[in-house]
């Protein structure tokens, strides 16, 4: 019986695991090693604002894993991979022999190297444990300071406000969301935040974090101190790859994978944040540390591990975050400085569109608009479809130059639906997640 080993119980690992069971022609042995019980990081903000119970975050219960006949090593981390012998050693010394394995060990939060960053009142928000820590410390009226104004910080912004806390965002860069939106969009979001009572300090370098009894004091290089109740550091993530040192698996920025999600070692696959695979739009190797890429990587790797020959066209960079009922989304090569770009702003709504081109095809897009605006939501999907399909918009390019908001007729008349309909990730219709409380 083939022995599959999945290392990492996050999105990529769980999608792979489920796909192995969907695709295999004969029953195999599947082992899961995961430092934490499998849960979805995407939904932690909703646990933080108490709109869902903690039980809602788990993506596979023990019963479901048993139903799928998965041997589990939960609470354990992989410590070393001997690719010659086909053995993975865990942090407690357990050795697991495999025929093929998937590395899906994800990322961890990194704190800025500031004195006091490891202090009592300073939190990260990345794991479930960290989410519990933040939740325990925020009360109505608390003053929360978020250090870092990137995507992760913004995913919990609404939750913090919903808990009745006062929020200050501190960013060392000259503007917010530097890796998700351009300066024009960032300016609109910043103005919107101020309108909603959020204080924003950009270009602000924290020099020291001091424990002041129940409170915490932040000192800055220039600018007045801030005394607050809770500090959340959302200053970036780092892929969990150190443990692969000496394994022979080729690592560039991430584990270099081919179109079958295979690493330089043929029976070792990689998926999700740790994998450096093909970017759908540029064709270049890239790390897309986002949920949809982890899902697709996991499914393609799982299908190949199960004996299918599944090739992957590449992952599409995409993000969406809602900021006080304002949606901000980005697709593809939205920050390509060499691309031809059409932009349009409507300050009063506010609304913003940026379309980036490679010839007569969209290579990237930015979109900003109110969540209550159906037009925004529809355009978000259609822009994704246009970038994903690479539909020719030759007939529409001049029209869109004049009005970048008029995406819908271009989408429909370019017959993008016809291009998209035959596309599937695994060459077959996707299967429903089923009636179990399983989210994979």
């Amino acid at each position, binding site marked *: 019986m083939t022995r599959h080993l999945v290392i990492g119980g996050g999105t990529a690992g769980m999608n792979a695991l489920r796909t192995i069971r969907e695709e295999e022609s004969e029953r195999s042995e599947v082992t899961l090693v995961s430092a934490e019980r499998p849960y979805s990081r995407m939904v932690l903000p909703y646990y933080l604002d108490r709109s869902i119970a903690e039980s809602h975050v788990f*993506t596979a219960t023990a019963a479901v894993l048993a139903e799928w006949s998965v041997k589990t090593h939960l609470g354990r981390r992989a410590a070393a991979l001997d690719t010659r012998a086909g053995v993975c050693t865990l942090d407690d010394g357990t050795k697991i022999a495999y025929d093929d394995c998937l590395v899906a060990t994800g990322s961890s939060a990194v704190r800025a190297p500031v004195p006091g960053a490891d202090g009592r009142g300073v939190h990260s928000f990345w794991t479930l444990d960290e989410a519990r820590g933040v939740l325990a410390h925020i009360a109505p009226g608390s003053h929360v300071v978020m250090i870092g104004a990137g995507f992760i910080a913004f995913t919990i912004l609404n939750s913090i406000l919903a808990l009745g806390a006062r929020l200050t965002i501190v960013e060392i860069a000259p503007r917010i969301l530097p890796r998700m939106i351009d300066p024009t969009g960032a300016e609109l979001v910043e103005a919107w935040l101020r309108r909603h009572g959020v204080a924003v300090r950009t270009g602000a370098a924290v020099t020291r974090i001091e424990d002041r009894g129940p409170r915490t004091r932040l000192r800055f290089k220039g600018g007045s101190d801030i005394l607050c109740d809770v500090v959340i550091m959302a200053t970036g993530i780092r892929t969990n790859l150190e443990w692969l040192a000496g394994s022979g698996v080729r690592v560039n920025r991430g584990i270099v994978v081919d179109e079958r999600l295979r690493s330089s070692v043929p029976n070792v696959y990689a998926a999700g944040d740790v994998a450096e695979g093909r970017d759908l739009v540029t064709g270049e190797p890239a790390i897309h540390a986002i949920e949809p890429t982890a899902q697709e990587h996991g499914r393609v790797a799982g299908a190949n591990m199960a004996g299918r020959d599944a090739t992957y066209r590449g992952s599409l960079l*995409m993000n969406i975050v809602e900021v006080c009922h304002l949606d901000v989304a980005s697709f593809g090569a939205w920050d390509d400085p060499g691309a031809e770009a059409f932009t349009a702003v409507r300050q009063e709504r506010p609304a913003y569109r940026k379309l980036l081109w490679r010839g007569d095809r969209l290579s990237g897009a930015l979109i900003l608009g109110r969540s209550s605006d159906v037009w925004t939501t529809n355009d978000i*999907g259609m822009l*994704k479809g246009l970038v994903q399909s690479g539909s020719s918009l030759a007939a529409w390019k001049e029209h869109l130059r004049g009005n970048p908001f008029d995406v819908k007729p271009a989408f*429909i008349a370019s017959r993008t*639906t016809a291009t998209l309909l035959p596309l599937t990730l695994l060459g077959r*219709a996707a299967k429903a997640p089923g009636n179990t409380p399983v989210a994979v």
Partner: protein
Amino acid sequence: MRVLKLTPDKCTGCLRCELACAYMQTGEFQPAKSVIRVSPFEGHTSYAPYTCPQCAEGWCMTACPVGAITITAAGAKDVLDDKCVGCKLCTIACPYGTMFYDPDTRKAFKCNLCGGAPACADACPTAAITYEEVATADWIGDFARERAARVLAAR
């Protein structure tokens, strides 16, 4: 599987489908909450309805981090309200622009074929929307392309 077949040449732009859909989906006669949308063409002289094609991949379904989108007995992809957390991942994963988000309930919603008796098809007085045993298709692309060509040429 039966799907919503759209015949744009028959659409008069009366918007009854939007009203019927919004009422069925949300209990409100509010076209803004309809998941079938009628678009005007050629300066509002012709119209076409557009809705979820119930694609094979189900990009919304595979993207959902909590398994809140499933396939109903009618074959439609549908959002389970008690599982949806409102993260909007489905709205960026769906390449057709046919996922919706209700800011009041903080849930995503979409065409679920009304459990096998679509209100839009029922409400359509001209059979521009029919519920039939056919393969899903790009029903309105050619119609739109032909009309758009005239508008774009007139620029």
